[in-house]
């Protein structure tokens, strides 16, 4: 043992030297550099951007995308996609809206029911993907369209409209609204509680990924599923848990948008699932799984929020946002591909 210890000490120097190199192969480095670049650009280009009122606007915009991007990133590291994540935000908000305004259910009970339904759909997604062996892309594309159809058709059948009205008149609305939709004014800027949710979700996700057994399993099932199974990782449990996490995040974002605006449209969230995936990829997640970071995904959402509002502040045509996002995505994919080759991970 003594000889081994001596060897360990002798090796310490080279360990320190590689630490700097390792920093540059972290998945979130690219997103961090890009976020700083976007921040500096719009701060210089427009007056309002780098101010408390301005920050309140772009942080609010980034927060809901950030919560979803972090959950989607965990799922992508686990090797799967969830295309139903966007529509889930509208689905859960509509459940609460319909149950309270139309059926007069207690609003707290309705919120809990929406969570249970969301987790159920998430578990179903995971179960179908694992039991059929089909790509999650196809399975969740199915649930996406099923939910989108239900959102529109059922809402119209029950309420006769395609949006929920009169949420503020629901009893106890004021008791739950601050949890998801409150804001504080700091230096003339409005800061929403959703920013706190975003930070909390990012911190918890990072801790789970890097410091728990579950995190180890998420990397393993995404990186090499067969190997993970051979070595005793509970693959089914891990994957279903990931789909439920994404659905749970969809519920949280659904509640945030419902209680911030006190209304919800039947088509809320449709099309946003791709933005979550873009944020996660810009944040360093590999499309093939097994590599990525929650902080990176949060930074990806921050880039999205800053660009979205920055373009508005600069009074450009907001349609340019999509072009910018597409370019970011391609750049990120090339960068990730390069990192992956360097890391030597050939087969999935």
């Amino acid at each position, binding site marked *: 043992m003594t000889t081994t210890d001596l060897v360990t000490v002798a090796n310490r120097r080279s360990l320190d030297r590689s630490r700097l190199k390792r920093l540059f192969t972290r998945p979130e480095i690219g997103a961090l550099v890009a976020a700083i670049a976007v921040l500096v650009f719009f701060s210089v280009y427009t007056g309002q951007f780098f101010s408390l009122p301005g920050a309140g606007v772009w942080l609010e915009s980034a927060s809901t995308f950030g919560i979803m991007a972090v959950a989607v990133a965990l799922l992508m590291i686990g090797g799967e996609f969830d295309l139903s994540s966007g529509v889930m935000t509208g689905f859960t908000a509509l459940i609460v809206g319909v149950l309270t305004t139309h059926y007069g259910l207690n609003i707290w009970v309705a919120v809990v029911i929406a969570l249970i339904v969301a987790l159920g759909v998430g578990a179903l997604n995971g179960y179908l993907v694992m039991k059929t062996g089909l790509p999650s892309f196809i399975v969740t594309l199915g649930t996406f369209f099923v939910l989108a159809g239900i959102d529109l058709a059922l809402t119209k059948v029950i309420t006769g409209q395609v949006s929920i009205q009169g949420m503020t008149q629901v009893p106890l609305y004021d008791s739950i609204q601050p949890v998801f939709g409150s804001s504080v004014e700091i230096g003339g800027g409005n800061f929403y509680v959703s920013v706190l949710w975003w930070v909390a979700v990012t911190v918890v996700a990072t801790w789970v990924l890097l410091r728990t057994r579950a995190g180890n399993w998420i990397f393993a099932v995404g*990186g090499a599923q067969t*190997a993970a199974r051979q070595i005793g990782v509970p693959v089914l449990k891990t994957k279903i848990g990931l789909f439920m996490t994404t659905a749970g995040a969809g519920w949280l974002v659904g509640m945030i948008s419902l209680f911030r605006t006190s209304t919800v449209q039947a088509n809320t969230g449709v099309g946003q699932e791709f933005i979550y995936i873009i944020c996660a990829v810009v944040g360093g997640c590999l499309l093939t799984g097994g590599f990525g970071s929650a902080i990176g995904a949060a930074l990806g959402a921050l880039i999205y929020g800053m660009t979205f509002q920055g373009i508005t502040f600069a009074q450009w045509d907001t349609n340019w946002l999509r072009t910018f996002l597409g370019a970011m995505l391609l750049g990120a994919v090339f960068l990730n591909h390069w990192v992956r080759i360097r890391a030597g991970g050939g087969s999935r």
Partner: protein
Amino acid sequence: MSTEAPAAAPQTPTASAVPLIEARDIGKRYGSVRALGGVSTVVKAGEVTCVLGDNGAGKSTFIKILAGSHQQSDGELLIDGTPTHFSSPRAALDAGIATVYQDLAVVPLMPVWRNFFLGSEPTTGAGPFRKLDVKQMKATTFTELDNMGIRLRDVDQPIGTLSGGERQCVAIARAVYFGARVLILDEPTAALGVKQSGVVLRYIARARDRGLGVVFITHNPHHAYPIGDRFMLLQRGESLGTFPKSEISLEELTGMMAGGAELETLAHELARSGGSAAEVARELRAEVDALPTDTASAQSPAESPAAAAASAEPDAR
């Protein structure tokens, strides 16, 4: 299997000790199809038992029985002298039999230390704050690999950046650390170059020296001979017998592996067809003649002229 479990205490190999594994006339049938039959061999602590055979010879059926993926349908499998049927790979693992498969069961993009403990991670703390014992995991990985003679610059590097041989060694070190008494290695050198194969053979020797019983499956007699203590040959699901190293030379082993009799038959057939094939046939015959005659003829099929010489293996069809 406890995550704190240190490696099994080294056992001194003695000839009189009960073998870790003893196979007595083991066979496997799928319905009426006989996939494996008549396999008898022993695995002793501190010794290497080599299982040799060509593709489809029944090597993988045999190791699957040892590893608990399949159950034998004939014969007896004795673990520490007790007849056993493994119900699952887990049961074999609990008996201290660890299998390192060809694909190694590692996740390329994950750091070496995470791979080392994957599925059996040690944790500290309680309840929702239970977390990985990262410090201990990294230190143990480094020490265990160092004990196997693998000097890593950094246990944090993705395991995919290691060479094939090094990855194989990490998988072996992992099995040893988690209490394996018997190590089954499925073609560990098959995908490796000459140099890397040498590295892996050295680690097999180290595992043996630490008192493990090793089952080394290969189709390469040149890899098996230097390290093996006994050699079990399989051909078309039948055992050609188990030979201690003292009773067989590398040439004889190679001859039996190459199927000298089959080459001879082939040479015969090609010669009859004549033409350009005759050239090949002459070369083949020259090769057959170069083989030691006793092993070459020992398994000759009946139609071969050489079969007139004492045929010790009537059912080598």
